[in-house]
C-alpha cells in the first residue's frame, strides 16, 4: 500500500499525514509535488490541510489548477482512492470531484477544537475499521468548513447515503450544538457516489496517537491500508 501525499505551496498537513503513514502506520509514503503530473504509482492520494497559495482568493480555488490535479482527476475516474482533508476537501469541491462548497464558519471565526463524528458509512475503503454508527473524536482546524450545497445536491447526497461523517455530541446525537461551523445537516465529510473520493474537514492525522489526545484517526488510515491488503489477498 503506497500513500501519496500532495504538497502544494502553502500545504501544512503534509508532514503530519506523512508522519502517521510512515511512523505510526508503517505504510509506504510518497510525497507528490504539485508541479509534477505524476502520481508515482500511489494507491491512495491524500490532499492534506493547509492554505494552498494562501487561499487568498477562495479556499482551494487556485490549487485545482495545479498540474498534479489533472492526474488526480484521471486517477479518481479510474476508481483510485482520493482523500481530501480540510483544505484538501475544499480543493476537491473546487475541482468538481465532490459536490457543494465550504464557506466561512457561521461564527465567522477560525475554530481549532475537538469534535465528535458519527460514522454513517463503514462500508467504505476509508472507514472499514470503524464500527457501524461509531462515534469517533477528531479535531477540526479551519475558518471555512461550513458545508453548503444547493437543495437538490443536498437531497441527492442524503438519498445516496453519501454523507460519511456528521458532527454529533459524545453520545452520537446529531444536534445543532455539536455543529462547530454551521454546516448543513451537520456534515463533516462526504464521499462521491462511486465511493472512492472522500472529503472531510476534521483532521484524522492529528489524532492517530494517544499522546495527541486520541487515536481514532488511525482507524481511517488503517482502513485504507488493510483494505488494500484484502484486495491483494483476494
Amino acid at each position, binding site marked *: 500500500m503506497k500513500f501519496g501525499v500532495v504538497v502544494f*505551496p*502553502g500545504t*501544512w*498537513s503534509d*508532514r*503530519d499525514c506523512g*508522519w*502517521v503513514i510512515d*511512523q505510526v502506520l508503517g505504510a509506504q509514503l510518497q510525497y507528490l509535488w504539485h508541479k509534477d503530473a505524476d502520481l508515482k504509482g500511489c494507491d491512495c492520494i491524500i490532499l492534506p*490541510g*493547509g*492554505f494552498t*497559495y*494562501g*487561499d*487568498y482568493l477562495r479556499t482551494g480555488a487556485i490549487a485545482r489548477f495545479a498540474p498534479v490535479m489533472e492526474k488526480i482527476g484521471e486517477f479518481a475516474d479510474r476508481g483510485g482512492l482520493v482523500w481530501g482533508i480540510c483544505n484538501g476537501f475544499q480543493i476537491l469541491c473546487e475541482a468538481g470531484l465532490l459536490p457543494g462548497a465550504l464557506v466561512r464558519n457561521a461564527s465567522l*471565526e*477560525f*475554530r*481549532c*477544537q475537538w469534535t465528535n463524528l458519527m460514522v454513517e458509512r463503514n462500508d467504505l475503503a476509508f472507514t472499514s475499521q470503524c464500527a457501524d454508527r461509531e462515534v469517533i473524536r477528531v*479535531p477540526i*482546524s479551519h*475558518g471555512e468548513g461550513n458545508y453548503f450545497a444547493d437543495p437538490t445536491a443536498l437531497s441527492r447526497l442524503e438519498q445516496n447515503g453519501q454523507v460519511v461523517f456528521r458532527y454529533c455530541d459524545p453520545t452520537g446525537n446529531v444536534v445543532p450544538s455539536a455543529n462547530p461551523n454551521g454546516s448543513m445537516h451537520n456534515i463533516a465529510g462526504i464521499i462521491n457516489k462511486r465511493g472512492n473520493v472522500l472529503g472531510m474537514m476534521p*483532521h484524522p*492525522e*492529528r489524532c492517530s*496517537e494517544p*499522546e*495527541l*489526545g486520541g487515536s481514532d484517526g488511525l482507524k481511517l488510515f488503517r482502513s485504507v491500508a488493510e483494505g488494500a491488503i484484502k484486495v491483494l489477498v483476494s
Partner: protein
Amino acid sequence: MTAQQIDERRLREVALTPDEYRVIVEQLKRAPNAVELGMLGVLWSEHCSYKTSKALLSRLPSTGSAVLQGPGENAGAINIGLGWAAVFKIESHNHPSAIEPYQGAATGVGGIIRDVIAMGARPIALLDSLRFGPLPASRRHFDGVVAGIGGYGNCIGIPTVGGEVYFDDCYAENPLVNAMCVGIVRVDRLMRARAEGTGNSLLLVGADTGRDGIHGASFASVELDEDSVGRRPAVQVGNPFLEKCLLEACMDLAHTDAVVAIQDLGAAGLTSSVAECAGRVQGAGARIDISRVPKRERGMTPYDVMLSESQERMLVVVERGREAEVESIFQAWDLTSAVIGEVTDDGYLTVVDENDLVARLPVELLTEGAPPRRLIGVAPEPPPALDLDELPPLVDPAATLLRLLASPNLSSRRGIFRQYDHMVGDSTVVPPGGDAAVLRVKGTRLGLAMTTDCNSRYCHLDPNMGAQLAVAEAARNIVATGAEPLAVTDCLNFANPDRPEVYWELEETIAGLATACRSLELPVVSGNVSLYNESFPARGEGGPPRSGRPKGAGAAGSAIYPTPVVGMIGLLDDYGSRLEAGLRNEGDFVLLVGSSNNDLGGTEYLKVVHGRVAGRPPALDLTREKAVNKLVLAAARANLLRSAHDCADGGMLVALAECCLLGGIGVRCPSLSPEAPVRLDAALFGESPSRFIVSVPSRAMPEMQTLARRHHVEISLLGLAGGESIEFEGQFKLSLAEMRQAWEGDVV
C-alpha cells in the same frame, strides 16, 4: 533657512538628536548624505541599538553549560540533548499593533518566525503575550490582534500553543503584543548570521521590496501621539503564504553546504540585516547594489530601498560561485531571489545604485556607534500602602470565587486559543489552557515545555520584586508540567525612559530579573526591549489627562506599567511523564504544596473585590521557590503526581477551581480555617508564590509526605477529588456547572 534648521528638521524625521548627529559628523569627518542619515537613524533607534538599555542588559546572566547561543544573534539556542537544540526568542510589535492591530500583530508573528528560521531551525511553536485596555473599549485592539495572530499563524502552519492575555487601564492606548517562537534544529546544523568569507554573495530572497514600513524602527522608538494614526504607512502588511514558502525553502537549504549564513530582514530592513551580518565578523564589510534589489514598484529611491521594512524577506550569504545551486532551491518554491552584493573585508557598508555611490558608512558606526544614553533613574513615590486591618473580612467565598473566575484577567482563554491552530505539527502533547504547553520532539521522547508570564500589576507596585515574580511564575508553570526549567527569553516593555521614574523601573526590573535568573540558574539567551509605550496629549494640549485615561499609571497618566514578559522553555526527558493541571481521578488526594501568607497586595482579589491597586506584591523567597520546584519535580519523576497546577493569579481557590474545571472533577474539602495570623481571604485569594496544587493517588501519600519532609517543604491536604462541585464543608459549595458558567461564560 539656515543649514542648522534644515538639519533639525531632517534629524526629527530620522529620530536622531543633535548630539548624535555631532557624533556622526565627528566619526565620518563629513556630513552624512540623506540616505546615510536615514540608515543611521534606523540603526541608532532604540529598537535596533538598545542605546538606553544595553548597559543594563549586560547585567543579565546569559551563560550556562547548555547555552549554544546567547544574545546577539537572531535568536538564542539551548542544547536539549540527543543532538537537538531548541532555538527561541520573544519580540514586541507594540507600536504597529496600536495603530493597525491586525497587521501589527500578524507581522509581529511573521518577524519572530524568521528570527528562528535564520538560525537554521524549524519553528515548532508560537506563543503570544498580550495586554489590552479593558473591554469593550479596547475591542478594536483586542479583536484585531487576536485575528492577526490567528491569520498569520494558522496560515503558515505553526501551532500557537500558549501565551497570556491581561486587561488593564494602563494599556488602553498602548496595547502590548509580544510574540515568541520556538524552533528545533540538530545542533550541528545550527546557523549563525555571520557574513564570513570575502567575496561571498549576498542573496536577497522572498518578497519584493516595497515602500511599506519605512521608518518602522524609528517609529517604534518614540511615543505614540495623535499624529501616530498618520503613521499607518509605517506599519507593514504580512503575507503568511509567502513566508510559508520561504520557511520551507530555507529548510531545504539544509540539503546544500553552499550557505554560509541566513539573516532575517526585520526592523530597519536591508540596512540592519546587512550591517548586522557584517558587524558580527571582525573587519567585514559589504557592498550592495540597490539596482539589483527586486522592487514592488517603480520610482523607489535608494532611501526607500534601504529603509523599507517589507516583510517576508531573508538575506542569505552564499559561497561565491555556488549561487545558482542555492537559487534553484528558492525557485522550486517560486520565490524571487537576487544576488544584490557581496561580502568585503574593508569594514564598510557600501551602497551603490549601478555606478553611483549612494552611501558608504563604517559597519561599526552603524551597529555599535550609537552613543549610549546615560539616563538617571529616580524612584517614584511609593505606591499606596495596604493596611490589612482596614480591609473588611471576606463574607461570601463562593460569590467571590465566581466573581474572580469571571474577571477578564482570570477567565478561561478557550475563546481565544480555539481561534488559533494549536495542533498542527502533531507535536502538541500538552495543549494550551493549563500551565505551560508541552511539545514533543518527534523521533525522541523529549518534551519541550514553554510559557510566557508577567503580572505587571506586581511590577508597577515593585518593579524589582515584580520581575522576580515573573521569572518564578514562568518557572513554576514549566515545573507544573513535570519539566525542568532551562532558559529564558525576555521582552521588556516600558514607558518613556527619559522620565527618571521610568528609567528607575527599567533598572529595578533588570536587577530583579538578574537576581531571579541567577538564583534559579536560568540563562537569558535572547530578548527584546520596547520603550516609549506611552502616549502623550496632542501638541498644545498639555493640560490634565483626558477622560478615560488611566489614573494609576504614574505621572504621565497614559504610561504602561513596567511589563517584563518572561518567556521560558523547559525540558522533559520523557514526555510520557508530563503532567497537566486538571484533576484526573476521583478519590485522589488534592494537596497544596507550599504555604500561604497574608499576601493580598497587588492581587486580583484586591482589584476586583475592593477596587484597589495597592500594597507590596507577594514576597518571593527564591530559596523556598527552588525547594518547592525541586519537590514537585522529584515527585513527578517518582510518578507520585497525577496532576499539578501553579497557584498564582487569583490565589489558591481560583487555582483549585481551575484544577476541577480542567479535569471535569470536583473536590470535597473539610472546612478551611487558616492558622492565625493568616486571614481567610488571604488563604483563599492571596497570591503567595512558591505554591502548587497537586493531586496524588492515595497509595502514594506516604511517599509524598516523606519527599516533602526531605525537601523541607510544607504540604497540606486540601481535600479529595470527586463529585461535581467544590465543597468546603460547612463553608460553601459550588457546582462545576456554575463555576464553568462564570469562567467560560463571557469568553472575552
